[in-house]
């Protein structure tokens, strides 16, 4: 694919993340921190997020298998997970975290389990899309435009 076309494709891909509600403005804050001294900052932070959070999700998964459920522990894990998800702008994932916490507060184990399944789904979807995005961004190389495209 010709280079300009590649960049256009990447631009549209990125825009779709916001249009579909996968990412929010916090992702733009993350992008703003990328500069010549840290040219891969966004990808590095997102990679770190997926690495760190996979352990938290495993902890939650294991905690959900216990009987009775320890809602306090689940809440603490989710607090941590929501913090990092919020930091990278993972909007849909963040929403599921909030829902999960509501169910924890209500002591609703089934609600927690159902929400957790949805959360894992959103988490995986975002991961796959961002992996593709970063891969294509690397392949395309630096853009010739002076300004980074903004959300709106």
């Amino acid at each position, binding site marked *: 694919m010709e280079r300009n076309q590649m960049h256009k494709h990447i631009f549209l891909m990125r825009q779709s993340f916001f249009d579909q509600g996968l990412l929010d*403005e*916090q992702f733009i804050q*993350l992008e703003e*921190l990328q500069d010549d001294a840290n040219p891969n900052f966004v990808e590095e932070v997102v990679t770190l997020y997926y*690495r760190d959070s996979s352990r938290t999700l495993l902890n939650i998964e294991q905690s959900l298998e216990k009987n009775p459920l320890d809602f306090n522990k689940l809440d603490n894990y989710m607090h*941590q997970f*929501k*913090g*990092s998800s*919020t930091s990278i702008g993972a909007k849909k994932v963040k929403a599921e975290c909030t829902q999960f916490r509501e169910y924890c507060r209500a002591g609703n184990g089934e609600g927690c389990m159902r929400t957790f399944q949805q959360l894992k789904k959103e988490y995986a979807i975002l991961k796959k899309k961002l992996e593709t995005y970063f891969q294509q961004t690397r392949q395309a190389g630096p853009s010739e435009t002076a300004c980074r495209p903004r959300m709106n």
Partner: protein
Amino acid sequence: MASDTDYDSDGMRDNGNGGSSEGNGRRRRHPMMTWRNNLRALVVDNGRICRIMESGLLDAYGVEVEAVGTGEAAVELIASGETFDLIVIEMFLPFMSGPETARTIREMGITSKILGIAPMYWEKDAQEFLAAGIDEFLEKPFTPELFVPFLREIDNQK
């Protein structure tokens, strides 16, 4: 940008005693804002990603940042004589909680602006944090829209 090599993924030092901070290894060449005074901030957050973003954003806005993963490390740093204009503390820290950290810092006679932050909370959590001595409680994400007014206030008062 603050490095993060000294911490495991939970932001905890192996010895569990807090430990050294991550300072600004590199100051941004062209910060988004400049201040009349040299502003220093301490970020206390056990979440590694959160810590990177919070300290990264403050750095981008012209603030010299130290970042630690525990309340104990924050208290140790302050006790060693380090001074900060702004202290940002996550509410749910392991071991010494956010409110406990804020209370301890205030008991040390520190009058710096302290902001409490959390990604989600119940009202009673916020009240507990405020009662512990923070100046303001903010919901994450920690964005420039939230922290720049405080930096402006601090800069004007220095």
